[in-house]
């Protein structure tokens, strides 16, 4: 292990060692801290994970796509960001691709993802 990898591991551990316990296609709720005029409050953002990047390292991120009444939003979250309070999985999606960029050109019924049922083991966050 080189020094950079070691520093990245330490940094990830320092930030709580969060692990992605979700996959592309899953619906998640991400709670983030927002600074609102000096006061810190929690804001939640729910949507479908369309891509995960960089494993579980400090540099990893994931993209959450939210489609709500006519307007779609995509937000990139950095897994280890101290601004993320929690990531909760709402629903496991059944998909065959790791990156769901094709959802961008779809909407409504075409953008649905079937639910994956009977998942035996939940990956526990550390």
């Amino acid at each position, binding site marked *: 292990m*080189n*020094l*950079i990898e070691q520093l990245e591991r330490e940094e990830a551990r320092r930030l709580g060692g969060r692990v992605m316990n979700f996959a592309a296609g899953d619906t998640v709720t991400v709670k983030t801290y927002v600074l609102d005029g000096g006061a810190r409050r929690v804001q939640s953002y729910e949507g479908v994970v369309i891509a995960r990047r960089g494993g579980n390292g*400090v540099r990893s991120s994931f993209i959450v796509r939210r489609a709500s009444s006519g307007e779609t939003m995509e937000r990139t979250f950095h897994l280890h*960001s*101290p601004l993320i309070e929690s990531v909760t999985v709402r629903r496991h999606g059944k998909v065959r691709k790791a990156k769901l960029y094709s959802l961008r050109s779809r909407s409504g019924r075409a953008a649905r993802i079937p639910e994956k049922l009977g998942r035996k083991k939940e990956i526990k966050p550390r």
Partner: protein
Amino acid sequence: MSGLGLIGVKVGMTQIFSERGERMPVTVVAVGGCRIAQRKTAERDGYDALQLAFGERKVKRLNSPLRGHLAKHQAGAARWLREFRDAVAPKGKGAGDELSADLFAVGERVDVRATSKGKGFAGVIKRWHFRSNRASHGNSRAHRKPGSTGQCQDPGRVFPGKKMPGRLGGKTTTVQNVAVVRVDAERNLLLIRGGIPGAPGGCVTVSPSVKRRGESGKKG
């Protein structure tokens, strides 16, 4: 502490998060084993400076003047020597003593000098950011050419300093006024915000910033 810096080796880049949750790109510089060599004085050498030694090298690979010089100042077989003008050694430190990364404080502004990556013989587009010529519409093999280099019979010459193709990179480059984001005194690492010239493994000189002398973390 005036003017004294450290010599290190570029380890590579990574990213860290600040307390406020900002993501920061950082370059890791390893400064372990940076030691004081010669103290130059105005009376003897014409100027005041502190020479530091860094890195390891086989003794038999040193030429004899360097071997003698390093032995005289108890600096061991060093790979690089760098001078810091008007620098004063920290209290109780003399020739041969190692300096540690905590010479710099978190938040302090520094200048970083290193040899940039060599790009070889580069054209004007890469080297001087010229615009490239048209891709089509009758352009005949002149897509990345420099075009005209001047006028006609009068003046009948190309002015000195005309930007032309040539060697790019591989020169000493300084990035000024960059912040030290983290100091690891145990492992002697400096985490400096942003990029630093040169490839990983290259020699890097970190000195207090010339631009913000009064505002630095430690007073000079």
